């Protein structure tokens, strides 16, 4: 296969997805290529899910400018795409007397950048608002515009919206070579050649490698690992806002995060690693995280951890986003999108749109652009009468697949209709398998539905694509 596009986007993380969706407003032929079995399975799934206010980054940097704009775009984006988003506010707290000075500096920086509503709180106010935080804290800076999302839901919704508006998505589609091709570039993949007038490098931690494929190796990425720990539901409501220390030059520090679903998460760590696949959690990481957050909130105990994960920030040398055209004609970097990349993504998309226009891409608005995608059905959240009415109409709503999160067969089917191809894809779309039994009950049912819908045998169902097989056929000749 060899097809011609106006724009080929490499990488189906939040950045590639946001750009593809933004460009889908115009009369353009666009391909979105993702190496993995599903979109959003890179760093965009393994992060803190925070929509940062932006007062902690200097406006001298690109990331510092895009973060504030990105934050402001989230209300509309959430209204159109129906992913979970809530502005719960953030506190940067002072542990030491010197931190109070730093808080004033942060406030001044934020005010100057137009971060709304920043306010310094004294210890009495802090205690009133967040009674479970340490009594030792000396004050805090409150940023009401901070929000939380389920980041994977955002990526799924962006891609769905893009696809609805004509973007062609190819998964299991790693770009392995890039070659000059007329006035553009040809991206070679196992699924064919995708020729684009513009090729956008949104490959996250692999973005320096993709740049090298194009012959534009102008930067290197150092993966910076962050480990996060989810805590037991027992701690629901422990804090109402995001709790941050005073940031250091390297990181925003280790945080207490009341996630969109309410579960408390603590993390991340920040450790430079060599291996770009190293998403292992470590005993040391756990020790560091808990030792630190206990200074913020003494009632958090390491034994409350129910599950953990790690993600890799794509840190480019220079420590800023690397966005812009290169010496290779048509090849545009949107690389080194480290934190706050999730927050900035919608603003990055606008920025890249303008940049492509300046490079000569004609942007003709489509009158029929459809901004909305509908919210996925969430049976468990419906009123009993509504549940009963649904079940009376569609028997699949009376068949429970995941008992812990009360997910029905209708929701699983819907997730497959919207692109789920793996057990993790189902889990992150429907929550099936996220509950107490961690898939002990729903795995067989989910495997059966996936196998039937995809027309493959049971043993071909995977956890997240690639070599993540779940089971082998019995009695069949076993290959090594």
């Amino acid at each position, binding site marked *: 296969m060899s097809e011609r596009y106006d724009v080929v986007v490499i990488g189906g993380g939040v950045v590639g997805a946001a750009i593809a969706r933004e460009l889908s407003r115009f009369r353009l032929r666009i391909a979105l290529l993702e190496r993995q079995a599903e979109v959003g399975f890179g760093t965009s799934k393994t992060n803190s899910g925070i929509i940062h206010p932006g007062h902690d980054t200097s406006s001298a940097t690109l990331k510092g400018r895009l973060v504030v704009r990105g934050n402001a775009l989230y209300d509309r984006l959430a209204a159109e795409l129906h992913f979970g988003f809530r502005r719960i506010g953030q506190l940067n707290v002072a542990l030491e007397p010197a931190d109070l000075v730093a808080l004033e500096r942060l406030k001044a920086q934020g005010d100057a950048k137009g971060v709304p509503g920043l306010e310094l709180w004294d210890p009495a106010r802090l205690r009133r608002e967040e009674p479970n935080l340490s009594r030792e804290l000396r004050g805090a800076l409150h940023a009401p515009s901070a929000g939380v999302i389920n980041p994977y839901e955002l990526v799924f919704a962006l891609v769905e919206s893009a696809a609805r508006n004509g973007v062609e998505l190819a998964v299991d589609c790693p770009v392995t070579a890039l070659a000059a091709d007329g006035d553009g570039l040809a991206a070679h993949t196992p699924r064919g050649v995708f020729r684009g007038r513009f090729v956008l490098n949104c490959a996250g931690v692999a973005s320096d490698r993709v740049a090298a494929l194009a012959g534009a190796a102008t930067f290197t990425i150092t993966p910076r690992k962050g480990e996060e720990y989810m805590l037991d539901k027992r701690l629901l409501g422990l804090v109402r806002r995001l709790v941050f220390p005073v940031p250091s030059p390297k990181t925003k520090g280790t945080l207490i995060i009341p996630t969109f679903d309410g579960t408390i998460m603590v993390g991340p760590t920040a450790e430079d690693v060599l291996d770009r696949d190293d998403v*292992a959690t470590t005993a040391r990481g756990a020790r560091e995280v808990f030792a630190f957050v206990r200074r913020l909130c003494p009632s958090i105990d390491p034994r409350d951890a129910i599950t953990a994960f790690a993600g890799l920030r794509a840190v480019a040398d220079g420590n800023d986003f690397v966005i812009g055209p290169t010496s290779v004609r048509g090849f545009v970097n949107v690389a080194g999108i480290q934190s706050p990349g999730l927050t900035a993504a919608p603003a990055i998309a606008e920025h890249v749109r303008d940049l492509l226009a300046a490079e000569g891409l004609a942007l003709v608005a489509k009158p029929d652009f459809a901004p909305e995608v509908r919210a996925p059905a969430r049976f468990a959240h419906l009123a009993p009468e509504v549940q009963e009415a649904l079940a009376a109409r569609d028997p699949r709503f009376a068949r429970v697949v995941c008992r812990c999160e009360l997910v029905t067969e209708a929701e699983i089917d819907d997730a497959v209709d919207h692109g789920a191809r793996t057990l993790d894809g189902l889990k992150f779309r429907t929550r099936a398998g996220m509950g107490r039994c961690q898939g*002990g009950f729903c795995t*067989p049912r989910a495997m059966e539905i996936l196998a039937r819908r995809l027309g493959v045998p049971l043993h071909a169902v995977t956890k997240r694509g690639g070599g993540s097989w779940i089971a*082998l056929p019995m009695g069949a000749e076993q290959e090594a």
Partner: protein
Amino acid sequence: MLGRMEGDYDVVVVGGGPAGLAAAIGARDAGATRVLVVDREDEAGGILLQCIHAGFGLHYFKEELTGPEYAERFVARALDRDIDVVGSAYVSGAGLDSDGTRRVRVMREGHGIRTVRSRAMVLAMGCRERTRGALHIPGTRPAGVLTAGLAQRFVNVMGLLPGRRVAILGSGDIGLIMARRLTLEGCEVVGVFELMPFSNGLTRNVVQCLGDFGIPLHLSTTVVEIHGQDRVDKITVAPVGADLAPDLSRCREVACDTLLLSIGLVPENELSQGLGVELDVVTQGPRVSSTLETSLPGVFACGNVLHVHDLCDYVTEEALLAGRFAGELAGGVKRPRDNIRVVPGDNVRYCVPHTLAPGREHTIYLRSERPLRPAAIRVGDLVRRKLGFVTPAEMITFRIKPDVLDRFHGEALRIDLLGEPAGPHLAGAEP
């Protein structure tokens, strides 16, 4: 499973495993006319349906049956008694009306969602397996880490193998049984790793499932890291000290593509909690009276939802009793409240039931906190009896004759296990 579910009932039983089926039979035999059993699986039988090995029914039927055979006999007995048994029906909530009527909300495939009312309710939801989250094992999150019960379902129900080279963490019975089963299916079981200095499974399973197949059991050892990107490719194991903390200087790697977890069972009490039933923090099941009634009147509990049993025959025995009391209550029989509290004493992890009444025979189920040899049980200053070897893996059942309690005049009856702590010495075990 087709089945009838119409109108309201005398007794509704939630869960159609061995406990639920026996409770329904007990209720019917005690005079309840309309009895309903609801199970979320297609067929009633509970976990027994995936236990295709023999070893069930020795006590109750006096013959050795497989799990599905045992279940089938109970389903047949229930149907013979005109008990309504429905499958593919999930109880998503339960409650009490202000007049004391019990109700359950049933989501039933092909029949929509319905509320069913009854005079008495029996909770028999069984248990689930503890997962990796309970352990905090650092490392990657690849495919290939699963509970032994899920692996059992793969092999026995779905015709799939969980992997080729299998390590097992925890020496619970399901893990031991799966070690044998997977070996027979041609998989290589590289070892069973147990944190404690003793096995958590029945001695007979250690001998028959590991010893006979040359599978090593590594006691006082745990998994400290999981490796592998997409799929498990190895684990790191380390010996633990007396404080159960791993000694990382002595860790080693074990190549495998699968890690089965057999690290314990947790009673499935979310429904009970939703109802407001009081739970015992140790058993994680409801606190019950000598009639197996929970803290809510007319709501009974039995089987693994009450406390984790190691033998199905005991589940049956307990559930027949719970069903009988539920049936009697539905028929209007009133009993005086229990007036003796059972208190777990030395070396006793828990006792069920939590209260007793004089004038009736009682069966007390208890577990020891540690292996003891030789052991004896002491019930207040009423009874003292020799037990032989005792381990936390094997439940102790103890009957108290009616006249014994007549001699007791206190409010709290303390039960102690006496004996010397025993070291690891089980067959097949490597230190």
